[in-house]
């Protein structure tokens, strides 16, 4: 059963000729429609996220400024990121979609949630929006779960690193953030050495892959790097920052996945969940409408135990060596952390304060 929260953003938060546009939601809805789920599709209306929900992950100052900026008519936050008069409400609704999905999953005790909502979120940091993102949707839901004592895994397979999610939960040991992303690429964070802050070392897992990487490379990242970390972490919930911009047709990046590969990634992620009714997808990027439609269908079908992709899985692209190197680096870094009981120095991981008087973070 698919529990769809939304849609949010199919008619609002429209920046004109911009790749992050309302049609992306239409493409997702078409992809879901292609599956003809019938009574296996349940739609829930998102309530807007409350101020308290948002303030768990964003500063009060940023929220005030963003709301006021939209009310004044909006404009640009940076060369990439627009705000329109409808953007504040859209952002609150988009953040609420994940909360609604979790609520519905808890009531039913089964199914897969999908927050079909934009603007996307994973670049939005505690104190600023950037990279098309205003409010960090996946973070709002994750923080809500954390507040209830749940352990949360966030898997971010968007082609870009989720710098916002990483930053917000840098020091949070009860949230495991795993990201695969093209490197080098915007936003320039997400090196393997970024493993979480003091007190949460190992709770951030970054696997950068080179341009041209194929589906098998990302699957390897989930199997060789993510799976051991997830096994040790034992999440109660699995939230997926589900961008489709790693698709080979996407105009914003240079990875080489097909829609079938997203199904493969989804199957791997489904294994991370402790049981049914504990997985929620959050739409992040994805800017080729056909790719978004097909990848949506393939991903949702895989999570429901079906096959649905007109494309073949891809393999043989560069990056497998890089992934294995990350796996090795991570093993060594974690071993060093375990060994470090008497204040010895830790060279490899970037963990925040690194002997400097001022707090130093990798972004």
């Amino acid at each position, binding site marked *: 059963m698919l529990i769809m929260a939304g849609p949010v953003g199919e008619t609002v938060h429209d920046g004109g000729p*911009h*790749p992050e546009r309302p049609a992306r939601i239409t493409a997702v809805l078409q992809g879901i429609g292609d599956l003809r789920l019938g009574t296996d599709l349940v739609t829930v209306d998102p309530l807007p996220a409350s101020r308290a929900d948002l303030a768990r992950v964003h500063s009060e100052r*940023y929220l005030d*400024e*963003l709301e*006021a*900026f939209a009310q004044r008519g909006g*404009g*640009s*936050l*940076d*060369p*990439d990121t627009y*705000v329109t008069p409808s953007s504040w409400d859209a952002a609150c609704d988009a953040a609420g979609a994940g909360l609604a999905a979790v609520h519905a999953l808890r009531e039913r005790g089964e199914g897969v949630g999908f927050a079909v909502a934009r603007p996307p979120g994973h670049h939005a940091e505690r*104190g*600023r*929006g*950037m*990279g*098309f993102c205003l409010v960090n949707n996946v973070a709002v839901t994750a923080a809500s779960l954390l507040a209830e004592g749940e352990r949360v895994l966030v898997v971010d397979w968007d082609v*870009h690193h989720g*710098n916002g999610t990483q930053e917000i939960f840098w020091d949070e040991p009860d949230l495991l953030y795993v990201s695969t992303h093209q490197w*080098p*690429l*915007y*936003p*320039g*964070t997400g090196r393997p050495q970024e493993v979480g802050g003091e007190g949460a070392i190992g709770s951030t897992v970054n696997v950068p892959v080179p341009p041209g990487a194929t589906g098998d490379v990302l699957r390897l990242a989930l199997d060789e790097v993510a799976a051991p970390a997830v096994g040790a972490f034992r999440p109660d919930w699995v939230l997926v920052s589900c961008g489709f911009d790693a698709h080979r047709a996407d*105009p*914003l*990046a240079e990875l080489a996945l097909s829609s079938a590969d997203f199904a493969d990634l989804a199957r791997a992620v489904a294994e991370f969940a402790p049981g049914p009714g504990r997985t929620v997808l959050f739409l992040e990027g994805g800017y080729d409408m056909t790719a978004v439609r097909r990848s949506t269908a393939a991903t949702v079908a895989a999570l429901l135990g079906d096959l649905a992709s007109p494309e073949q899985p891809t393999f043989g692209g560069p990056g497998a060596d890089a992934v294995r190197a990350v796996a090795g680096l991570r093993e060594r870094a974690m071993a060093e952390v375990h060994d470090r009981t008497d204040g010895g120095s830790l060279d490899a991981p970037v963990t925040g304060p690194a002997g*400097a008087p*001022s707090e*130093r973070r990798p*972004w």
Partner: protein
Amino acid sequence: MTRRADAAAVPTAIAVGYDGSPDAAAALRWAAALATRTGAELRVVHAVGLLEHAGMAGGPARDAALAVAAEAGADEARVTWRRVDGEPASVLVREAEDGADLLVVGSRGFWAHPGVLGSTSLELAERAPVPVVIVPRREQP
């Protein structure tokens, strides 16, 4: 090499944020003049966003940026042009972590957006591990 913490140090590597705007050009001229006087390395740094990476938005040209530096008297051999994926303030902070001991930005443009989020240059000043100079547009050393 004297680095960080010593506010009186003569800079050895200056990173200037450059987005092609008149404010950025003023910052670049100021940085180039300082680099010339001190013999410092000058890094002209352009942050490449999502749209520019995809060719959906334009960015400043390398030659134009280097011409501005040359006009201000910078030694060509000591000037490098860097296009770096990322958000402007973060990209400059990373330059500081990569050895730049002075950061220079213009006072307006996307380096210091006057709208929501306050000023990126102020944010940079909060986050940078080295001194930051904010150059007003009229500054023409």
